[in-house]
């Protein structure tokens, strides 16, 4: 965790309750997840009750309160991707990684999530591994792609 960076984000928004979501997002982008002690800091710096910070941090799926693996695997299960076969891709990835959506494997290698429409339905079924987009994926292809990650 890069404390300086988090410190900097917090300082930029000191006392700005309205910037809560923005701050949580910036921290999550930096750290991939939101540790409890950071949420406490956010509450103090922004002068927002901790209960509200927790409420915001839990209502949105985007925020993670648990640590993430080295590689994030996002599988789009928006309807357009479903229609083009994302379920089969998801099943294949679950089989290969041994984890279900929302989980991280014990080696902290992969974290798996299903995500809503990413706005590029033309590329469905859509999979994102460590920020790289894989479009029009077939289960076998994604299996090959996953093997490349160490």
């Amino acid at each position, binding site marked *: 965790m890069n404390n300086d960076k988090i410190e900097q984000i917090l300082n930029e928004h000191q006392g700005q*309750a*309205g*910037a*809560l*979501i*923005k701050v*949580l*997002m910036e921290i999550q982008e930096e750290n991939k997840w939101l540790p409890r002690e950071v949420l406490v800091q956010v509450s103090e710096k922004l002068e*927002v009750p901790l209960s*509200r910070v927790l*409420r*915001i941090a839990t*209502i*949105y*799926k*985007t*925020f993670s309160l648990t640590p993430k693996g080295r590689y994030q695997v996002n599988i789009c*299960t*928006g*309807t*357009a991707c*479903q*229609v*083009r076969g994302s379920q089969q891709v998801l099943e294949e990835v679950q089989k290969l990684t041994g984890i279900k959506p929302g989980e991280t494997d014990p080696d902290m290698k992969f974290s798996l999530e299903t995500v*809503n*429409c*990413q*706005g*590029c*339905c*033309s*590329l*469905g079924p*859509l999979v994102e591994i460590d920020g790289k*987009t894989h*479009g029009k994926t077939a289960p076998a292809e994604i299996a090959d792609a996953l093997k490349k990650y160490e």
Partner: protein
Amino acid sequence: MPRINSTAELEELRKGILAQKDPNKPCISVCAGIACLGSGNAQVISAFEEEIKKQSLDAKVDLIATGCHGFCEKGPIVVIYPEEICYLEVTPEDVPEIVSQTVVGKQVIDRLIYTDPNTGTKAAHQSEIPFYKNQSRLLIGNSQKINPKSIDDYLAMGGYSALSKALFEMSPEGVLDEIKKANLRGRGGGGFPAGSKWETTRNAQPGVEKYVIVNAHEGEPGAFMDRALFTGNPHLILEGLIIGAYAIGSHQGFIYTRHDTPVLRKNLDLALTQAKEYGLLGDNILGSGFSFNVEVHLDVGIFVSGESSALMRSIEGMPPEPRPKYIRTSVTGIWDRPSNLNNVETWANVPQIINQGYEWYSSIGTERSKGTKLISLSGNIVNSGVVEVPMGTSLREIVFDFGGGIPNGKKLKAIHFGGPMGGTIPESLIDTPLDFDELSKLGASLGAGDMLVLDEDTCMVEMDRLFLDFLAGESCGKCVPCREGMRQMLKILTNMTQGEGKEGDIELLEEISGVVGEAALCSLGRSIHKPLISMLKYFRDEFEAHIKEKRCPANVCKELN
């Protein structure tokens, strides 16, 4: 950048920009829309940069990374101007050849142009490709010709002339009147007349600060046209918003947009900075005395936050929980002040209405649905992408002419509009025109304009189950009918798909739908049954087969076949 202090200075600046542009200078336009980004256009762009340097063409050729060209299915797309030669599925390896042969040599590379999959006919120019032919790309057409990061490119296209016209030649009432007469209807789902909404906010709570807001949340799965337009031409929406603020008497605007589209955020931030530097935003815009500022707020990805009151809560920094419908946000919105919310595409229509007048605008479209509409075509369709057509265009034309029909020799079964709050119509109604009211009558409201094409291998029970499964994670959970009703509906449908459907399930679904539709607090809850009701209307036998015969006619539900 110089600050512009009058219409004359704006026109002078525009003249200067145009004087530096040579229309015959080759320009390579590479699509940097979201889908093309996903299919590797970044490497294509760097390959062009390298090749241009290598062949020492820096001064002779322009290269722009643009917004979505529309034909996302075939990305990355590259268009070479001035000839408008369109290359599809371009790879970095193709780039040296494109530069030498086409940009310099003016030769068309056969392998990269469009080939009709049925007839084998080739089309080198964009205007000859069936996907583009006959579209009316009034809103999105410019996106492929400008660099969204350059305000000068937007000015060169005549940008901000509508703003200067509104500020200097029209009164706020005059602007409002124009929008009302144009009968511009909201593009975000409801089809509500924009003019009357503006007027409500304008007249509400005299003396109290008012707000205008862009809804760029675009949460419906299968909808991607707002992002495409906003990313590719941010100034267009901004110009519309400023004009609206002037008409309404607002000095503070908000843009509520997605956190997960970094290009959009970047282009938007840059657009705001540039507009401010030129004096098109901020204090005393163009020296007119009118001041207006904009703040960007990010949503964090929950569908209900696109609903007007939830969105406004979210801008206040509160959880996105809707308020009861009798509280009208146009009167009592952000911090209980009058707040006018419109969709991206609605705002984008404003500059052209001001520039060309309501008579011109209302000559396009149908009796009660005016103008063009952006459609995101997705699902089982050959040419998925963003299409812009006049209202009134038949669905057949959209699916078969622009969309190229259904892939893999399959038959069309149904078209679903409006995502999880929308409705489905069967293939037999394919000659229906694209029109807010015609579609509503059939039980499939147009929604934001996302059109999901379904082939014969689609199971309607499973389809509705998917919509409810999506919604279950996206409602705020505040009221019982929505939260619990949805859970029960989902359970019944899941049972059906697993061979455990019982006699009476359909009736029970209908009963729950009736209650939820009436008793839920916000439009989300009140719409969750809409897909189901439309599917029962047109595909009831399919639901019955799941229950009575334990059979899935489309062969989708694994436990049944």
